[in-house]
């Protein structure tokens, strides 16, 4: 029930925005994400963006795990 997917924002109008993934687009609500710009990435659950997502954070996250594995 907490399924969420990452989408790329292509346009914003107030609380409404359009996000895309793999060539598909979806109308979503962005009530809970301040300072959103087209080009940003968000995690979307049940039609609502619940958090912003950046490439840097994802890479940092992955590097952290990789580092720990490498240390085994």
């Amino acid at each position, binding site marked *: *029930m*907490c*399924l*969420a*997917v*990452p989408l*790329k924002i292509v346009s914003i109008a107030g*609380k409404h925005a359009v996000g895309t*993934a*793999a060539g598909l687009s979806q109308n979503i*609500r962005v*009530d*809970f*994400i*301040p300072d959103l710009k087209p080009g940003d*990435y968000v*995690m979307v*659950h*049940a*039609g*609502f963006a*619940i*958090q912003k*997502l*950046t*490439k840097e*954070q*994802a*890479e*940092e*996250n*992955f590097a*952290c*795990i*990789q580092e*720990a*594995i*490498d240390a*085994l």
Partner: protein
Amino acid sequence: MLFDEKFRRPDGIQRLVKELWDISQETGPIRLMEICGTHTMAIAKAGLRSLLPPSIQLLSGPGCPVCVTPAGAIDEILRLSGLPDVILASYGDLLRVPGSVRGDTLLRRRALGAQVQTVYSPMEALEIAVQHPDQEVIFLGVGFETTAPGTAACILEAKEQGASNFSVLCLLKSTEPALRALIHAPDFAVDGFLCPGHVAVITGSDAFAFLPREFGLPAVVSGFEPADLLFSIYRLAEMLRQKAPALENEYTRLVCPEGNPAAQSAMERVFLPTDSLWRGLGTIPNSGLALREAFSPWDAAKKFGFSPSPTVELAGCQCGEVIRGACRPEQCPLFGRVCTPADPVGPCMVSGEGACAAAYRYQT
């Protein structure tokens, strides 16, 4: 997809797996519980269990909103589905869950003429209400903290629009009280928790700090990709080996300690904590969310009544015990004989990756 690709096919999996086998030699049997139903699905899809040593057991906890909704609540929902000029809008998950009569589900009621529409978002339910001004639309608001803010936003929007034919049957639940109830149960036997990443996006990872702090239980907030899950399980095992229980956040790309303040404040504006009945856990104080007084016109419980009987459950079904980790599916007397995926008795057999359905497929 997107940035998640590399979390799907990470290097070094072999080393992690080997490490887990090594750890389990030292620690002996380990029982870890994933709380979130989406974690359960992701673990199954990645075939994670097949990689773990047999002594590391993954249990599916009370984090599937369908599995924790008691039969009495489903009975009430079925009653609502029979009211004239009522359209129920529901996430698909709920449609197969039987009430206290076996086989009596929303899917069956719809086949017999009830108006039940599946939606992906609460906003879709509100749109249905706008499109059908002559009908009453009731949104079945199940879910945890991840889902609650959107539900709150939807109710705020309904109020703003003055939508008079829309209401929400609020069955939202809170994670922390359920975990506390679980831990306090006499048959509690879990060694560590895989904490729900998307709940934590909203609540912040700090919401799970009570697990090591108060109960000495290791806890890892985890993402949903194979690497996330395997690494989080490794961290739980490692903390158990080290006997150093702590809260760790594996899902740093999305989860911060304090969560999403805008989402929290929407929940705060619309909801109040309330006592709530859970399948297998009984009534837990302050474990549910109710609409505040100001939103009564959009509260389906007030508009149409809602009095789930706390006692009716399907005779013999051990779903409550299974959810608590107190009983393995195979130990249920109905398992595999009376209760099968094609003809499920309890909610744990309903979902394709529910604990019982998964166990059924693996028995031969």
